[in-house]
């Protein structure tokens, strides 16, 4: 029983991390039809700069962690908005060029991060409570998993409230359905594009700081490795569906944890098989729109 509880809650924690990356990917694809392979770079730079700020404040304190999270989100948002404004905006409806540019940016940014912060992982110090465990039904759960879950739920609720109750949220929801018609109502949908990139970048940057707590370090490759699973989550959840991304994040992460434990470390394989099954049986994903 305790093992199942442990796997479930750690799976939820990992799923929270996937969601922070996948939410932006899903919104960006839903509104703009852009598969953003550079999304992992927003996560990595958010993590690096977040921890740079934390180091300079007071390493290992809650105050420093809060500053790191805020900085990570702001840096992720700014870099993502700049990417949309300077690179992607010229390439809407040019899907091959989008892929080439975003893949190129992802590769170049890893090289840049390695040039600045080196190729070795940078180990981070977080508040001591996050390194401890809490016992639930006999299972000793790492405390950082609880923080991941709480932050992801807050991000999900914030995005849902934003989409539901603000004018830009309305524009984004309408744009996901029919971008041209939004324009034909006299709305400059490009502003919404930049905003969605910024929101996705903020979630990724925040996710970068939290990922470094989860793994215990930051590296130039942390965004790329999480991006693969975020893409899988986005496809399984249904491209463009935030709720789908949230559900798929949890399903994928829990499946991965259980397969790793019970099937001899085959978590990644199980996730790929699940992706294949979804693509074969329900190509639009769990909650994706019909083609």
């Amino acid at each position, binding site marked *: 029983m305790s093992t199942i509880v442990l796997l479930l809650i750690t799976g939820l924690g990992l799923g929270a991390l996937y969601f922070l990356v996948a939410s932006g990917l899903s919104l960006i694809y839903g509104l703009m039809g852009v598969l953003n392979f550079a999304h992992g770079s927003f996560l990595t730079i958010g993590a690096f700069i977040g921890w740079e700020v934390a180091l300079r404040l007071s390493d290992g304190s809650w105050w420093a962690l809060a500053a790191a999270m805020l900085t990570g989100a702001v840096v992720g948002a700014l870099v993502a908005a700049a990417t949309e404004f300077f690179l992607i905006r010229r390439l809407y409806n040019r899907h091959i060029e989008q892929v080439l540019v975003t893949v190129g940016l992802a590769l170049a940014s890893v090289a840049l991060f390695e040039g600045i912060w080196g190729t070795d992982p940078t180990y981070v110090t977080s508040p001591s409570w996050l390194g401890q465990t809490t016992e639930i039904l006999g299972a000793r759960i790492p405390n950082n998993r609880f923080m991941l879950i709480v932050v992801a739920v807050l991000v999900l609720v914030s995005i849902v409230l934003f989409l539901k109750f603000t*004018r830009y949220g*309305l*524009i984004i*929801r*309408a744009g996901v*359905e*029919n971008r*041209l*018609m*939004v*324009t*034909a*109502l*006299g*709305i*400059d*949908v490009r502003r919404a594009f930049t905003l969605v990139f910024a929101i996705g970048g903020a979630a990724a940057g925040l996710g970068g700081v939290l990922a470094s707590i989860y793994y215990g370090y930051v590296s130039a490759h942390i965004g790329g490795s999480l991006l693969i699973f975020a893409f899988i989550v986005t496809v399984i959840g249904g491209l463009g569906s935030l709720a789908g991304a949230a559900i798929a994040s949890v399903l994928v992460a829990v499946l991965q944890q259980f397969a790793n434990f019970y099937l001899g470390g085959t978590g990644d394989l199980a996730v790929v098989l699940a992706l294949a099954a979804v693509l074969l049986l329900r190509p639009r994903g769990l909650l994706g729109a019909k083609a």
Partner: protein
Amino acid sequence: MSTSTSNILTVRNLYGRIEGQQVVEDVSFDVPDTGVTALLGRNGVGKTSTIKSILGLIDRSGEVTLGGRRVDRLPTHKVVQLGIGYVPEDREVFGKLTVAENLKLAERSALLNRALVEELFPDLVQRQAQLAGTLSGGQQQMVSLARALLNQNRLLLVDEPTKGLSPKIVGEVAQALLAAAKTVPILLVEQNLQVIRQLADRVVVLSGGRVVFTGEATELLDDPERIQRYLGVHSGSAEVNA
């Protein structure tokens, strides 16, 4: 064809392309600043593409002037902000938004014709909270018309508003357009000859992507030979066809 100060819209040498294919070819016509101008032609001659070219929804070249101001180099949203209401073919309501949200999205300023919309479409007031995707085709057309009428526009572009609707709803749509035409000029694409007879003051006929006839509506509609030649139907037919 000369540009007159009484024209709200002038179109000169307009070309439109979709994925490199020419769908509008050297189209020129005027829309007066009152009444309903019907843009007619057989199926596939480029009526919808002409409307989309005016709005910049497809690649275009040529000259489009709204109220004396060139708009052909402006992006779609800026053209619309200058005072155009657009009712697209197939309604294109946002199915996952409520009726109220569809209308809210269309609001461009604080000066709204809310009373007119509520008077013309009382059913929509009752269905504010309903998802637009769950409405009937006729109700969706009401939402689409209401979105266009909500703002104080200088011109309405209305594309096949009665397409696929029951005769009763066709009558309601025609009445709504008739009421709207008292306050704003309309460029109307329509296939239903009865509706054209009811609404149109002037007609512009396209064939092969070009304008082949412009004039008073009665000049065309009272001439069976012209109707047959330009629209491919007998004057007693209900629908323009190919």
